[in-house]
């Protein structure tokens, strides 16, 4: 009896083990925004098509997720099989060998359909490390009704000077109507995204060819002085604590005449369930000034696979499905065509139905076309990225500079003091990282 029992136990345990080995669990770390939540909702279709793959979700706020993923990938924790990362992390982590290359993709994936700027932004030294889920640039939103009433006309791509003149004419704080809404909340992904793109338009750059910061130059002084003057005089009260969401709420409730921010907001301001101004919104390119280079930013959320994952094949199957044309069509069928993930695939914008349903799509496409992270400054710069420099030190530096710029906007320091402190903070960090002595 005993002799029979042991082999049969062995056989059953081996069978169980093989069953366990077949069912791969893919843990996905992602951000909480509309597109990602739709992906989670639709993932049942993927699981049905791949019964051997089980998906588990970890949804977190962007900054929390970034910290969580960084800890895990830097220590080789292996807690995630698919990570939602941006254009900032993908090339840095890829170069360090923390991510699995996205090669040998299925033929029907059509990699060439993805915008080259997006593809390049998620690559390092020619190797792709993330598949773009959705991408965005920045653009100008304005209230067509207010412009019409005031006899104003918004050009295709206004200059910042023109934006200031419009904001001045439409600023009526007594009626809770503010001329301009811009990001003021400190953070490298908050105010510094806008300010960096704005500085590009003013001819500034983060670093010269020797990686030395240039905050003591006239271009940065022009940028920050203009920003503080514009937002301080014609912006809403407490602008230094407004980020994307606060400005979105102000714009959607009809309190902003002009708003310059991410193209992804196009679907929010035209969504009747959250906006009171759906049919009164006009779209223009992000403002230029002395140059059009780098005037609009470029960002993409991509799905990447950490090298520490023990389910790389299953993870790649999911990442390719979630960023495929087939998935976009699924979104269109379930949530309406305007909800298709924007900014990544040329085929989305070749779809006449999408272009008709999404009034912001044409300007999004134009903004994406113009954004070039490899050539975003008037004078040559050693870094890639438009609203950021893709170096590991940037996050810390820009967070500190963001606080100083926000302080200047709030009036707790002068523009000169903010720039002088930004220069010394950045010099110290860059020297410490041995970019120069």
């Amino acid at each position, binding site marked *: 009896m005993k002799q029979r029992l042991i082999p049969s136990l062995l056989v059953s345990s081996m069978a169980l083990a093989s069953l366990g080995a077949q069912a791969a669990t893919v843990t996905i770390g992602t951000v909480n925004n509309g597109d990602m939540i739709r992906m989670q909702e639709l993932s049942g279709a993927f699981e049905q098509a791949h019964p051997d793959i089980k998906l*588990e979700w970890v949804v977190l706020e962007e900054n*929390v997720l970034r910290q969580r993923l960084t800890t*895990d990938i830097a220590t080789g924790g*292996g807690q995630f099989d698919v990570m939602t990362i941006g254009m900032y992390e993908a090339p840095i982590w890829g170069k360090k060998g923390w991510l699995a290359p996205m090669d040998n993709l299925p033929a029907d994936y059509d990699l060439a359909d993805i915008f080259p700027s997006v593809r390049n932004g998620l690559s390092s030294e020619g190797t792709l490390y993330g598949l773009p889920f959705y991408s965005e640039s920045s653009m100008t939103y304005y209230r067509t009704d207010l412009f019409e009433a005031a006899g104003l006309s918004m050009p295709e791509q206004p200059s910042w000077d023109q934006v200031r003149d419009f904001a001045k004419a439409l600023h009526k704080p007594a009626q*809770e109507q503010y001329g301009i809404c811009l990001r003021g909340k400190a953070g490298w992904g908050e105010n510094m995204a806008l300010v960096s793109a704005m500085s590009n338009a003013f001819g500034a750059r983060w670093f010269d060819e020797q990686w030395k910061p240039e905050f003591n130059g006239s271009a940065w002084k022009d940028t920050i002085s203009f920003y503080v003057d514009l937002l301080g005089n014609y912006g809403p009260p407490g602008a230094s604590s407004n980020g*994307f*969401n606060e400005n979105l709420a102000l714009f959607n*409730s009809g309190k902003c005449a002009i708003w310059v921010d991410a193209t992804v907001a196009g679907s*929010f301001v035209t969504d009747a369930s959250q906006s009171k101004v759906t049919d009164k919104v006009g779209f223009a390119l992000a403002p230029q000034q002395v140059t059009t280079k780098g005037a609009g930013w470029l960002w993409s959320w991509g799905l990447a696979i950490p090298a520490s994952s023990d389910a790389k094949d299953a993870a790649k199957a999911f990442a390719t499905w979630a960023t495929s044309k087939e998935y976009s069509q699924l979104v269109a069928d379930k949530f309406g065509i305007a909800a298709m993930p924007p900014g990544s695939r040329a085929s989305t914008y070749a779809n006449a139905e999408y272009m008709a349903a999404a009034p912001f799509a044409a300007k999004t496409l134009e903004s994406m076309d113009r954004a070039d992270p490899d050539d975003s400054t008037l004078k040559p710069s050693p870094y890639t990225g438009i609203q950021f420099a893709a170096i590991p030190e940037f996050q810390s530096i820009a967070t500190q500079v963001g606080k100083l710029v926000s302080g200047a906007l709030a009036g707790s320091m002068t523009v000169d003091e903010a720039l002088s402190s930004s220069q010394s903070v950045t010099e110290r960090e860059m020297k410490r990282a041995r970019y120069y002595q």
Partner: protein
Amino acid sequence: MLTLKQGRQLQTVLLGTLAWLVALTIFFPIFWMILTSFKTEIDAFATPPQLFFTPTLENYLHIDARSDYFHFAWNSVVVSFGSTLLGMLLAVPAAYSMAFFETKRTKSTLLWMLSTKMLPPVGVLVPIYLIFKDFGLLDTKFGLVLIYTLINLPIMVWMVYTYFKEIPKDILEAARLDGATALQEIYRVLLPISKGGLASTVLLSLILSWNEAFWSLNLTASSAAPLTALVASYSSPEGLFWAKLSAVSTLACAPILIFGWLSQKQLVRGLSFGAVK
């Protein structure tokens, strides 16, 4: 001119009003959170804030459709009660020895234990993460129980020690004279006397564990994530989320709020403990 009686009455009314004002001020954010959870996203973001609106359950329905609330709630229950139980098993003997067999180093040991609370948790994130990784404790309920126990142990020892110090040594000596062992002393004499104090320690540890967010966010992924991780998943940098976040926060607070309400008698008794003398 007020008489003495009138003066006292006025004092009582003033103190009562002040107490109500303080209580309402403390409760207001929770009230506003509950109110916001029944608003639409547009109403939640409206300026000026709306006190009167058409209530909706859409946020709760959204959470029900998107997340498995009971999975997160069960994890919260297991790790809070588990860590509290383990913490009390360690804190009671530690406090017993410190309170009744004091040495010249007892005070400094207590202070040293408390000083571990002064280190910002992020300072030890990477070493703890690596240890958890090596021992296979990442994303496990047992790992969270361990870390919560370690976090709350200094406070638990301090609290239990303070309650034990209030108990006259003579009572224990009497038990000893009757032939009680150390274990019997604790179990039969000490614990029944200090029931109120221990209950408030348990409750505080439960609340601290329930609300802890830093370690639960960093050491879990999907299977052991408690309610704090669920709440964090509803905050968004792009898109309106206040109403949904308020709804999920209300759901996360509700169990511990109800538990606290039910055990408030023990809590008050514990806080006013010291009547043994």
